[in-house]
């Protein structure tokens, strides 16, 4: 198992109170596996990704749980120890390609420094590796483009550069935080194709964070659906999408018009997600849930069947067919 996260809790200690952004999240990613982490804004999916790399900004911090990378717990490691992992064993790609590259440094500088942050190699060798990585992500004439600055690239090309930087050390795990959300559909497809190919060719594990079930469906082996800081349902992609059991997952699927036939009515989930500071006890979804009963006042434990897991007292198993 490349990564195993157990009962992760990441809290933000603000003046107004403790915001439990991630509240007891467990999942695992095997070698070469793609995990799709899906949720709406504020569900804690990005914070989960940052927690793995130890990159949560204050006032937030990991308040509990374990993050096992090849069996070794990363929680509690010093920044110095984490740094040797970041970019080397675990890399990350960000959402906004316009903001992830430093505007005043050339692509070459930003790539060479990444190589040399972990490996003692000459500048020439680091440069050669940078050219190779740019080629892998499909940047035409990488040797020339290396001298360019970020503003000379389009959004899609910048995201390719960011992926190339993440690839420099052939990491075992890449955490991708909504890397195609800011891109157009045709460009998104290009990036997805690049990522899919790379993951297959190098056997890299991937956590793909997205709000879009459709993107994840096309890419991921397994899916984890997050709501209000918890994973409410997880399993094989086909299982979760063909027979979802959590009312939230079902609601999410029926909210996206692209998933429905033309003319089929949308069934929105009523209300809105509770803010991280105002979450009451019990199942966080119960106030919006069509199946909620008095039982939901207590937080449901995880239930499981054939690797399909959910946190719900009223799983919609009969519905699933």
């Amino acid at each position, binding site marked *: 198992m490349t990564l195993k996260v157990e009962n992760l809790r990441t809290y*933000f200690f*603000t003046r*107004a109170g403790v*915001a439990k952004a991630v509240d007891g999240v467990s999942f695992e990613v095997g070698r070469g596996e793609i995990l799709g982490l899906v949720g709406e804004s504020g569900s804690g999916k990005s*914070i989960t990704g940052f927690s793995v790399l130890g990159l949560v900004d204050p006032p*937030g911090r990991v308040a509990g749980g374990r993050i096992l990378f090849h069996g070794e717990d990363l929680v509690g490691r010093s920044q110095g120890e984490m740094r040797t992992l970041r970019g080397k064993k675990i890399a990350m790609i960000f959402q906004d390609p316009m903001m992830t590259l430093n505007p005043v440094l050339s692509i070459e500088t930003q790539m060479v420094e990444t190589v040399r942050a972990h490996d003692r190699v000459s500048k020439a060798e680091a440069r050669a590796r940078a050219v190779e990585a740019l080629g892998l992500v499909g940047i035409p004439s990488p040797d020339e483009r290396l001298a360019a600055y970020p503003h000379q690239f389009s959004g899609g090309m910048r995201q390719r550069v960011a992926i190339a930087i993440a690839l420099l050390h052939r990491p075992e795990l890449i955490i991708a935080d909504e890397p195609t959300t800011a891109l157009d559909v045709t460009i998104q497809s290009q990036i997805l194709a690049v990522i899919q190919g790379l993951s297959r060719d190098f056997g890299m594990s991937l956590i793909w964070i997205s709000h879009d079930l459709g993107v994840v469906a096309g890419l991921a082996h397994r899916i984890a659906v997050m709501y209000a800081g918890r994973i409410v349902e997880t399993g094989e992609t086909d299982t979760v999408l063909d027979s979802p059991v959590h009312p939230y997952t079902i609601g999410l699927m029926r909210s996206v018009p692209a998933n429905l036939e033309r003319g089929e009515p949308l069934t929105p989930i009523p209300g809105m997600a509770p803010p*991280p*500071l105002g979450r009451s006890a019990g199942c966080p979804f119960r106030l919006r849930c069509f199946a909620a009963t008095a039982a939901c006042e207590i937080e449901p434990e995880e239930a499981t069947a054939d690797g399909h897991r959910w946190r719900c007292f009223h799983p919609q198993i009969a519905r699933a067919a």
Partner: protein
Amino acid sequence: MTALTHRFQESQSFWARSLRGILGSPKATIALAICLILIATAIFGPALVPQNPYDLAAIDFFDARLPPMSNSMSGTTYWLGTDGQGRDMFSAMVYGLRTSMGVGLFSGVIALAVGTALGLTAAYYGGRIDTLIMRLVDLMLGFPTILVALMLLALLGQGVWKVVLALVIVQWAQFARAVRAAALIERGKEYVEAAASLGLSKPRILFGHMLPNCLPPIIVIGTLQVANAISAEATLSFLGIGLPITEPSLGLLIANGYQTLLSGQYWISVYPGLLLLALVFSINIVGDRLREVLNPRLSER
């Protein structure tokens, strides 16, 4: 997460938010209190001080350069000593404060009005008018205020109104630039487009919708500019090209003590200087706090 914490800081009224922001910091609260005390002193002080320092009948040349806590020929105690002409330093400082503050506030308010009007005009009309106004602003901001004020006063000569004029000329551009920048940001927002598509009149959009949203930088810069103006006036008066001797400000009082400083008669310069510092420092602290509360991204200076 930032959006979350942000929402708690925001509140309805801009003035309430400003005041709460100031009171949220002990430092700024003290500074605001000092500002208010000094303003009250400037307004009511002349009625309370022991002496009218510019009434020749009230001063006695034999009392010149008395150190603090001395008794005069007529028996009154000069808490802060006397200056070269035998004036009570404390009384002279209260009168000086009045002049300094008056010039600073007055020029600040005029500059604010002129700058805001020109900045809004530039942002609203765009095109040539914008280019013209902004070139002028660039021109003004390209030179240090003190140099421009020096140039102007070297040409105009001394006088209260001339100093006010010079200070307005060197300050308006700051306001114009800030207001234009803020107005341009607002103009690009969709609520302005919405207002236009709802058929609201242009003046209504400009003054009713955009101007209130441009207020924070105006207020912050206004505060800091008043402090600047007071400081600049003092400097000009110190150099002997600002206010005439008949309208002594704190700067002139300090200048009077310059020659005697080396012979150890420190009080003639030190006390008015401390008062000037207290005034400018406390205004700047309040302004800095306002900047933090109202507009964290406002550019420096």
